[in-house]
């Protein structure tokens, strides 16, 4: 019989391993998603060592969260975790020096109304802003939803988004410009100072 090639486990089985507190859960997650998670972290941080540390924190986060959580889509769950960890590190790094990452570029595109790197103000309600942004994303067309999340959440380079959608770079830029105008209106209408 031919020896089986090393294939990634399906997500359900990986989650089941987490539930069994089986250490192979991390190993399998790493085998299946390391490259993807590193790419998300790299888009934010642009620093390989930091990305590796983010990756380890992400696995630890997953280990701590599952159980009791049983994620619908493991990859999406890991995306949320790695982004949160990377963003926290990004703002810490930013206090020391500039970070030449794709996130920095994507944030600069919004500098018409999102300015400054100060700390979060005491009365800021992240959950509320999260709901406002989520409502805004849901109001967009399918294509614009994908572009918004790719660019501003996953900090994907514009060329990569264009390649995913088989569109030209200029078309993506046009779409982003339209999204930006609508986003600004939405934030203003919700009382944000932009």
């Amino acid at each position, binding site marked *: 019989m031919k020896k089986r090639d090393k294939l990634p486990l399906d997500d359900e089985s990986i989650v089941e391993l987490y*539930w069994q507190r089986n250490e192979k859960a991390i190993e399998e997650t790493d085998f299946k998603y390391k490259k993807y998670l590193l790419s998300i972290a790299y888009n934010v941080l642009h620093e390989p060592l930091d990305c590796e540390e983010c990756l380890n924190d992400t696995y*630890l986060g997953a280990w701590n969260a599952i159980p009791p959580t*049983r994620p*619908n889509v493991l990859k999406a769950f890991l995306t949320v975790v790695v982004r949160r960890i990377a*963003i926290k590190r990004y703002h810490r790094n930013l206090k020391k020096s500039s970070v030449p990452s794709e996130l920095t570029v994507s944030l600069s595109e919004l500098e018409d109304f*999102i300015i400054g790197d100060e700390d979060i103000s005491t009365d800021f309600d992240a959950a509320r802003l999260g709901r406002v942004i989520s409502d805004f*994303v849901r109001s967009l067309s399918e294509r614009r939803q*994908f572009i918004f999340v790719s660019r501003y959440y996953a900090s994907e380079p514009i060329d990569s988004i264009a390649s*995913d959608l088989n569109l030209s770079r200029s078309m993506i830029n046009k779409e982003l410009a339209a999204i930006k105008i609508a986003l600004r209106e939405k934030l203003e209408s919700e009382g944000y100072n932009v």
Partner: protein
Amino acid sequence: MNKNEWNEGLNQLDPEIVEKYVETKENLTKNNAKRRKWTRIAAIAACIAVVFGAVDFVFKPFVSIDKVNFNIESLGQANHFDLSDVEFTGLNFSDMTLPDEVELYRVSPRNYACDGNEVKAMADYFRLPFEDFKFDFVENSADYYGTKRFDMSFLRGYRLIYRRSGTSYSQYPPVTDTDEELVSKSLKIIDEIPFVENEHIERYVQTGKGGQSIQQGDEEPCWYIKNCIFSPVINGYTVVGNGGISVGFARTGLAEVSVNYYDYEPIGKYEIISPEEAYEQITNPQYVVGHNRDFPVNSVTSMDIKSCELVYVNACQNGYDVIQPYYYVRGTVYSHYSDRDWEDTFTMYIPALKDKYFSLLDNIFG
């Protein structure tokens, strides 16, 4: 609004949007790979067509953003097990006594994970050393205390953590308490936690290593954290899957508590398949979940069924947020491959609802 605030807001993006993005991205990647392959084939075909004078050749790129719908039965994904010629030993379900029908429940969606009063009560109970509750980790100089509000799908819950900052699990002294002692301690804590209904039973005690020790792959079973996991019971049946309480102990004492639960309501009684009918389905490899990747699934010789019980499964599927009955089967699977005998545990979920009800669910949730 500054960039820090914008990013924190984005961190709170609805997880369903992220799920949709991830799935769309995967579909696009697959379709683009297909398209590239077809582009090459089409290029060759076009050359041939030109050679033979054909002019009506149109190539359309495969661009679509498909919604991915979860199937209610997708709890068990195909594991490539070949169970066609396998000897089953152990239990055959014949001594199970079950009703003809059981109540089905739907999970009531919430727009929020948990309200401020609930979180505040938890913070007070654990005497967390901060007043301004941010639903996130709060770092001190040496330790960190934290609480995390779950915001996944309809679930509401909390995660409370006390851990030495910058340490991994392996830096704790090993836990020496027995499982029974830890369960007893856990139940005491659960009884006192505000807002947690007394509906949880002992399900199992899990032991786990975390952090760096996992990567170092220690051989010795030296547990730095032990978690007692408790699942809800509805209508007398344990709920497997989402929801439940986890209480973790390090040698230094209580290390973490996770509470994750949800609202639910009955939607009617539905017939279930009999234990005998369920037993007839045990050769279906789709129902097997959870095994080690190295296990040779194509050379299974026998499966020894050690336990079977009817459970509710909260699979948290996007299509239908229902808590539905499954036969929950566990045992040992044996294989012979490469002149070696293999052994592993298996878990199997056999849907207990009769097939005809799946279309009814479309009407209920449609």
